[in-house]
């Protein structure tokens, strides 16, 4: 029964490892950049000035309400045509996934800040904190605690949707599975391995999110 596993060569295993590296690289870089974009955009969304608060929506809404694969094709195939910007597949994947992560992360930041009761702000002001000190010392630590579990869930999701980069010829885990399937003609075996590898990365992260959620939880 297990003979078919043994039919994979060392080269195939090396090929898979390289592909996992690419998937992790693309995901880590894009969630890092996306988180930074999301923090900035999310905080602008919290502005008291309605016009300023609405500006990030121009970026957020189109990215939240269109398929990632379309965004990826626009960057990789569309930009060279309209703006003569030619990106290699890796750059196109990182840019698209970063912007996509940023859009979703900004919503998380905005919701977390809004979830802090007005009274928490007032209690800080009443003790003499100005707006910056209040945010830095009292509000931000609470926002962070609310944010961590949902941020991890978003990161897991971004890891999974990173598989779309295989559609622009980048050899990530999914693309590696596709290539090896064509070579071995054993789709169940190869995609089974791809499935297990994604699961092996995502599941511990999902458990970590659950644990953190319990650890940092508090009621107002």
């Amino acid at each position: 029964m297990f003979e078919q596993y043994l039919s994979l060569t060392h080269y195939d295993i090396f090929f898979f490892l390289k592909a996992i590296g690419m998937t992790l690289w693309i995901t880590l870089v894009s969630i890092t950049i996306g988180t930074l974009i999301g923090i900035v955009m999310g905080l602008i969304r919290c502005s008291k000035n309605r016009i300023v608060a609405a500006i990030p929506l121009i970026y957020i809404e189109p990215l939240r309400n269109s398929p990632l694969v379309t965004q990826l094709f626009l960057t990789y195939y569309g930009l060279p045509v309209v703006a003569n910007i030619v990106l290699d597949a890796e750059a196109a994947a990182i840019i698209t996934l970063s912007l996509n992560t940023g859009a979703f992360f900004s919503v998380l930041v905005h919701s977390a800040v809004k979830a802090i009761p007005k009274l928490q702000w007032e209690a800080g002001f009443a003790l003499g904190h100005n707006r910056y000190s209040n945010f830095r010392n009292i509000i931000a630590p609470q926002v962070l605690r609310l944010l961590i579990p949902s941020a991890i869930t978003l990161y897991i999701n971004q890891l999974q949707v990173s598989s779309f980069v295989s559609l622009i010829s980048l050899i990530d885990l999914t693309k590696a599975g596709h290539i090896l399937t064509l070579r071995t003609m054993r789709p169940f075996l190869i995609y089974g391995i791809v499935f297990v590898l994604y699961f092996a990365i995502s599941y511990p992260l999902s458990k970590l999110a659950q644990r953190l959620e319990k650890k940092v939880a508090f009621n107002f």
Partner: protein
Amino acid sequence: MAMIEVRNITKAFGNLVVLKNFSVDFDQSGVTVILGPSGTGKSTLLRCINGLETIDSGDILVDGLSVREKKNLKDIRIKCGMVFQQTILFPHLDVLENLVISPIKILGRPRNEAIEQAKELLNKVGLIDKLHSKHNELSGGEQQRIAIARAMMMNPKALLLDEITSALDPEMSTEVLKIIEKLAQDGVVMLIVTHEIPFARRIASRVLFLEYGSVVSDTSNEEFFTTVKEDNERIARFIQNIHH
């Protein structure tokens, strides 16, 4: 010069005028209890003094500093500590950190010194054993006593207490009122909005009665609970209704 001078202020929320051409002075001594029906502007007055609400006209001076000047707000808030009706501890911090964070960050006090003061105050409010508890491990009364200690950590010249027992059951309420009485005996200047008439009678040196955003009566404790109460039908009815 009075410590707090409220000069002809008006404060409205939309079309609802809560305080109208309102003036009153508070000296740097004693306990002033502010009584009156709900919605009459008592809490709004305290929030205006602390700069949490902006006033529409007039001015409030705290130790000569105008609340209309944004740059004065930090000093005003340090001089006038405020405790709210709802217990508002910072949920991500334990009791000790709730107490020391502001003196360290705002006043630049050394951490060790702030911790010593926090322990003294927790002793005073009878909660030294709760030093490392989180807010959800404390009863409402305990949280309110810690909120009082937290306000005292800034060494304010006056404490503004806004119906701090109204969300508590009678037993917890008694715990908190005992602490306030103790602070009053220690000479802490306080402006207290409350509906606890027996408590007001015990503690107040001055009683202010507000209705429709204006001062109906401003007298000493003794005068209020004898002459004014007898002579003013509205006040007599208010006190009677509260008792029942």
